[in-house]
């Protein structure tokens, strides 16, 4: 049998493409060498969020003024691990059911691209076999990058792959890399009571985010006791039986050391090219990543690539959108994924939800921009929640009213950003964000207020106290 579409990798990109293609009546083969769901479900988004909310609950309980005897509250890390496994297990089974209900064939084994129409599948411990498909989508994802010179032992020096299955809780963590992964893992460890040091090569944490958001997150981290070393380069990790010492050079050129019982390498992720014989296939690359056009087509006719494999923002929903775009192209429809329409969410000590251009990018892209803010301090809901850190920052084109970027840091920011995403995909004006009536008291009012404030009309701000 020749499949209409074979997909290598069943992460959010791969399985979304498989389901979309099956809904279009295609005969679909999904190849997965590990477990369905890829990094997102098994080693990324979902497990970290399970930990994140447990850790946040623990911190909230510990720091509560209204609970009694809360200084004695302790966390059962084994239970946390178990809950995470249960969550992942439930979602994996659910995904498996959905995939089967669509008549998608799942092949378990390593998938190697032999030619533009052929895949060799090697199941664990049995003989390889070949399948043919009219079109192929490569969605093999990424794995943590281990910088040259460092070794992951899995116990003291870890990547997120090991950290998320570690049976014990560290007391003193050094995180190398203060990007999204580093910041999220830092928030889990800090909320669980560990001391955290972040070492970052770049001049700031979360370097792709808006400067105001970065500054706010940095401030919260430091307030919560984290050490943040910017423009710092790790020179050496020396290990003893139970501990490690991380030697690094800081921005001033001083060589410093941080002790740790856990070192987490969060220095980014690299594309998984295991099934791609790069030399033989003559596939074009952009740096480390597979090169694709707007329709996700690689340089090999009939072969698409999506998700982390093609670089850009390494996000599950970006991979899923690219999977949809690839399937749309198979049906002759162009549905390019626009980078400025992909929301970015970070679960740090405060949540970050962002979409579109940063203020700096917007200034470079447009002759005139207008920025407005609304602080969580002015939100009734934020006070009731007890989370008044944060703000909404809105960037628009004063000429056309186009929404250029929305940056939210604070409670429920990751949920709140969806409204901006919807508005932007509908090509709404800034003013449309405050057109609908918002329920009170909710933090969703903050986005409306920021939109009102864009025209100096915010209700819950004193007259011209908060400059736009």
């Amino acid at each position, binding site marked *: 049998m020749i499949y209409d579409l074979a997909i290598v990798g069943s992460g959010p990109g791969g399985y979304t493409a498989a389901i979309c293609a099956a809904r279009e009546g295609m005969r679909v083969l999904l190849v997965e060498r590990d477990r369905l769901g890829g990094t997102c479900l098994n080693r990324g988004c979902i497990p970290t969020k399970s930990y994140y909310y447990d850790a946040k609950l623990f911190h909230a309980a510990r720091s509560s003024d209204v609970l009694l005897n809360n200084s004695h509250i302790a966390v059962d890390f084994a239970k946390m691990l178990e809950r995470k496994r249960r969550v992942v297990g439930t979602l994996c089974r659910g995904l498996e059911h959905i995939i089967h209900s669509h008549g998608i064939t799942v092949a378990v084994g390593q998938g190697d691209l032999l030619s533009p129409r052929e895949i060799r599948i090697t199941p664990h411990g049995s003989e390889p076999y070949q399948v043919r498909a009219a079109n192929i989508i490569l969605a093999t994802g990424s794995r943590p990058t281990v910088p040259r010179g460092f070794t992951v032992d899995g116990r003291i020096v870890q990547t997120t792959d090991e950290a998320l299955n570690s049976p014990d809780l560290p007391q003193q963590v050094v995180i190398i890399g203060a990007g999204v992964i580093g910041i999220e893992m830092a928030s889990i460890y800090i909320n669980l009571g560990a001391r955290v040091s972040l070492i970052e090569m770049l001049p700031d944490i979360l370097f792709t985010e808006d400067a105001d958001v970065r500054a706010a997150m940095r401030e919260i981290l430091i307030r919560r006791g984290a050490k943040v070393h910017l423009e710092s380069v790790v020179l050496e990790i020396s290990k003893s039986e139970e501990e490690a010492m991380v030697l690094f050079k800081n921005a001033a050129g001083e060589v410093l050391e941080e002790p740790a019982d856990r070192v987490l390498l969060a220095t980014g992720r690299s594309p998984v090219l295991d099934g791609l014989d790069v030399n033989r296939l003559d596939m074009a690359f952009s740096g480390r990543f597979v090169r694709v056009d707007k329709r996700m087509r690689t340089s090999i006719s009939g072969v698409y690539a999506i998700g982390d494999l093609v670089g850009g923002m390494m996000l599950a929903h970006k991979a899923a959108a690219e999977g949809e775009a690839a399937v749309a192209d198979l049906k002759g429809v*162009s549905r390019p994924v626009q980078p400025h329409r992909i929301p970015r969410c970070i679960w740090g000590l405060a949540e970050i939800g962002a979409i579109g251009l940063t203020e700096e990018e917007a200034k470079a892209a447009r002759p005139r921009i207008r920025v407005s803010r609304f602080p969580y301090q002015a939100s009734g809901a934020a006070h009731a929640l007890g989370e008044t850190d944060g703000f909404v920052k809105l960037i628009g084109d004063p000429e*056309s*009213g*186009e929404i250029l970027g929305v940056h939210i840091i604070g409670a429920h920011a990751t949920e709140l950003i969806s409204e901006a995403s919807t508005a932007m995909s*509908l*090509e*709404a*004006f800034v003013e*449309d964000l405050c057109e609908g009536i918002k329920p009170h008291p909710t933090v969703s009012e903050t986005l409306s207020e920021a939109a009102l404030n864009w025209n100096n009309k915010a209700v819950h701000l004193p007259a011209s106290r908060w400059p736009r």
Partner: protein
Amino acid sequence: MATEVVIPMLGVTIETGIIVEWLKKEGDPVQKGESLFVVEADKVVTEVEAPASGILAKILLPVGQKVPVLTVVAIITEPGEALPKEYGEPPAAGRSANASVEARNHGAEPVTEPAKVRKPLPQTVPDGPPRAVPAARKLAREKGIDLARVQGSGPEGVILYKDVATAVKSAHVAASRLARQAAERSGIGLEGIAGSGVRGRIMKSDVARAIKEAAAPHLGKVVQMDRMRQVIARRMAESAFTAPHIHFFTELRMDALLSFRQQVLQDFENRYRLRPSINDFLIKAAALTIRDFPLMNATLRGEEIHILPEINICLAVALPGGLITPAIPSADQCGLSEIVRQREDLVRRARAGTLNIDEIERGTFTISSLAQYDITHFTAILNPPQSGILSVGKTRSQLELNNGQVVSVQTCMLGLSVDHRVIDGAMAAEFLQSLKWRLEKPTFSFLHV
């Protein structure tokens, strides 16, 4: 009785006017006093009322033409009345009132009073209400269209009736807010734009594409230039716009050359297995003539004219996507058989795409022949940095008077284009004449080979 409608006197100093919009179509019933058209004169825009009730039988002046005031621009007839036949075909630019004096004698009612002018529109006020003709205002009011969001297409942005009509149509099309705004600002209608959004909703990018297409209508299919096309485009433009070309033509008697070729053909085939073509004789003759006119073999470099030592004759070879000009080196010194051999080889390899750079770039003079087409003569553009190019038309039979006898002769038009910066007319003429002499006396010329 038919009533003539004229562009009214708009002011003492105003002599001409332009109709910017007709508010009624031919065949529409009109009421006296109703707005009929919008006229612009010296930046004053006014609506003109119908001078009589009836049917707008004929519009004589289309939109956009400047005519003197009092020009007859339309005819209103009474219901059931036939259009007077002198108005059957509209003249290109309306009729002047003077010309219509004759028409009056043919039944049209004399113009007793010019058509009434409504109050001129106010001049633009920054941030004030938008300027719109009253008919446009009325329509906008009826259909609930905000005039502030309508782009006027009239003079100085005055909103015309049709602008509001377009906005009315657009209002019912599904489009994003930004798309609608972009369409309004550029004054294009949303209807007819293919929407790429959900359920065909028109998005900003769709409007941007439509604006681009509207700006460059009927572009048709876009063909990317390949490398050869790019080189031809660049070199030909460079040649045409830097070298001042002069062109010369002379008619060549071909009989002697054709019979000379016939005489040597058999011998060449037997001895070398080669078939000399007329082009080969042209190449040889041109090379020999260039010896006597070294400037024909020159190239201009800055303030210097460089006379090149080798006479390398290019032959233009047509290829599917362009043309290429490989050169036969030192053609003046080659025997005819060598020229034939080289020419055959170069043409074959030009078509196969296996020429090397030197073979393409070594040329010093070019021959371009369209003799196989039904083309008598043409002017060629110089092949830079060369200073001369010969163009060869088809060979044809002509009658000639020879000692009182009409005889049939074979002729061919030979053209020469030269770079006037290097070569003057007299020299070019002498060169061409000398070449003609050589080709018309082939036995004599080619004896020297």
